[in-house]
């Protein structure tokens, strides 16, 4: 039997609203006891005085690029980046090559992940074949193979009839449909937020309405179908209001926001650095304010990184030609911890939005430190400042807007299944 005792930390367990200094004892892959002054023979000790101890983070939105684009990332490197960022479970999107629209691909991802990744990896299967927005996938077979949700992320299902059928059919497998909300016609060739910055920079703008129109449509389709909808990477204050209304109307709608949309504005596109290019684009300070408030309030349920690795040479091109997306796993806590530092959110609530809430949305294990819970745990040093260097990180790619930036809040240790898989200063320890 293996034992780990995490001693003297501030234990934050959102599943039972627990926030107090306590010890946490783990045996094999389970939490066995939470209490004061715990002793355990032959236990590996993690001293957590001054630190937070929380359920491991759960990320509902990452791109791990395997199969097909292993030069950007693979399940091994993505899994290492995940645990280095405190994530014990990540859900990978279907826009791989081949697309995860076939149970064989889902099975391949799960097999590789079990062998290569220190983090748990849960595949999200495509909602339509080849992400073409036309024919729905075999959701029952994909669910059977291990898919946890369905999404054409990166693309939008523009045909409302197709979307209606996807939503209707998803009820058969009781899984959420995740939308990348952007009206492609209105977005046109927009690459930055439409507004003062797009006008100054002379780059084609993408208005918030392109997102809001689409969210509004799909909320109506949820009303029509009664299905479960999860809105990916909400970027505008107007979208927040649509989601708030849907929730008040009792619809099954959940939402996520990325660290970059919580922290950055379109002002940083100033230097035309393609590490500021993502879809949806960074918006204005007012949107950031509304997104942060919505996360605090719970209108937005959780933080998800939309970790999107791209090779350096793919990003070293014209702004309009560069692929969308930025890294997110390793910087997520250091970025969102700013909301605690600024007094906007209590640590327990931030942990809820990073672990317990997302785990519930996709019905995943984790999100709890109660006796008997699976021992997926993160130990965090909320006061520790560090400088992020993507070259020193675990992702294969480097496309981060925080390269060279100082962040406050660092992951001290990550445990998956009761095993220490990452420890600051020692690196990734398993696989």
């Amino acid at each position, binding site marked *: 039997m293996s034992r780990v005792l995490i001693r003297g930390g501030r234990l934050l367990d959102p599943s039972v609203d627990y926030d107090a200094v306590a010890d946490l004892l783990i045996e094999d892959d389970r939490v066995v006891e939470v209490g004061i002054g715990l002793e355990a023979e032959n236990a590996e000790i993690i001293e957590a005085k001054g630190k937070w101890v929380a359920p491991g983070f759960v990320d509902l939105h990452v791109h791990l690029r395997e199969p097909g684009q292993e030069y950007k990332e693979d399940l091994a490197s993505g899994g290492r980046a995940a645990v280095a960022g405190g994530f014990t479970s990540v859900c990978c999107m279907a826009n791989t090559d081949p697309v995860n629209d076939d149970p064989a691909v889902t099975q391949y991802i799960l097999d590789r992940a079990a062998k290569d990744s220190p983090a748990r990896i849960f595949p999200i299967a495509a909602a339509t074949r080849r992400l073409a927005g036309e024919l729905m996938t075999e959701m029952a077979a994909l669910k059977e193979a291990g898919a946890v949700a369905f999404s054409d992320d990166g693309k939008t299902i523009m045909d409302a009839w197709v979307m209606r059928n996807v939503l209707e059919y998803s009820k058969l497998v009781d899984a959420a449909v995740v939308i990348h909300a952007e009206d492609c016609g209105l977005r046109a060739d927009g690459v930055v937020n439409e507004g*003062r910055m797009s*006008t*100054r920079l*002379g*780059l084609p*703008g993408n208005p918030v309405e392109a997102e809001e129109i689409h969210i509004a449509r799909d909320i109506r389709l949820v009303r029509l179908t009664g299905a479960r909808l999860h809105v990916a990477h909400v970027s505008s204050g107007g979208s927040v209001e649509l989601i708030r209304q849907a929730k008040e109307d009792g619809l099954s709608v959940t939402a996520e926001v990325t660290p970059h949309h919580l922290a950055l504005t379109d002002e940083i596109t100033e*230097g*035309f650095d393609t590490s500021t290019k993502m879809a949806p684009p960074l918006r204005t300070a007012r949107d950031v304010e509304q997104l942060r408030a919505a996360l605090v309030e719970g209108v937005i349920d959780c933080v998800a990184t939309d970790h999107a690795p791209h090779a350096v040479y793919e990003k070293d091109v014209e702004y309009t030609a560069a692929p969308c997306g930025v890294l997110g796993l390793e910087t997520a806590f250091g970025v969102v911890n700013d909301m605690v530092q600024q007094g906007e959110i209590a640590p327990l609530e931030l942990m809820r939005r990073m672990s317990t809430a997302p785990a519930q949305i996709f019905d995943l294990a984790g999100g709890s430190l109660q006796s008997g819970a699976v021992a997926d745990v993160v130990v965090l040093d909320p006061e520790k400042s560090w400088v992020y260097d993507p070259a020193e990180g675990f992702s294969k790619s480097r496309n981060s807007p925080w390269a060279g930036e100082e962040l406050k809040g660092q992951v001290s240790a990550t445990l998956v299944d009761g095993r220490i898989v990452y420890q600051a200063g020692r690196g990734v320890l398993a696989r």
Partner: protein
Amino acid sequence: MIGQDLLGIEFLDREKIELILDTAEKMQEIGTRDVKKVPTLRGRTVVNLFFEPSTRTQTSFEIAGKRLAADVVNFSVSSSSLSKSESLLDTAKTLDAMDPDAVIVRHKVAGVPQRIADVLDAPVINAGDGAHEHPTQALLDMLTVYQEKGRIEGLTVAIIGDIAHSRVARSNIYGFTRLGAEVRVAGPPTMLPPQVEALGVKAYTSLREALDGVDVVMALRIQNERLGGGIFPSVREYSATFGLDRAKLRFARPDAIVMHPGPVNRGVELSHELTDHRPSVILDQVRNGVALRMALLYLIAGRNFPQDQE
């Protein structure tokens, strides 16, 4: 201006603009000589790195460099390596390794000159990037207006046309407002970019109101790729509502001048008659373009620009 690069007018202060214009006035004399060549930049290499074809701008830079005795090399990318999917910055670095004294960059996408300047040791002059900036065009426009009117401070300038997709408009807005002119922009609402007034201009959708009492009218070229699509219904309707002719020009001051960055779509932005005769000053703009670019090459490739204090 960042260091010695000239990437745009937005961050160029008034003193630097005036230095460039003063230098250009001195360069004009060279163009009137029988032998139009001075040895000032002998032994210096200037590279025209044009990712987007522009015979006029490229020729203007080439003549400017040659009048100062620089070696001018044209590196146009249709005939070179980007087709082999070499990255943009690789191309720039390759070029840098050949130690040019200045690199002139033109690209259809905003921001490319800046990204190239970020990796290049040689100073970069932006010769037009997407809908972002075209600083040398704005500087030659300022020079032309200054020489016509004897001043820029206190004048009113109306820019007419597709402001949203125009780098010429942006650079001129920054330049003329910095020198104390009032700038107006006008066009159909689909051609006015969002929050354009944040750039320090007044926006109009009525040509008549926009022209009321102005000293300078600047018509923008409707880009060919926009003639067929989406943001305005037809050339005929554009010409009827925003095309300039002598009748519409009567709304402006009697001594107003008419400018156009060229090439003119005759009968669209300007009537035939106005294209060829005063008060349009289109050929003066072209002539001034050479002197202005000589001044910039002298200042930048010749390293005669006062350095920013860090």
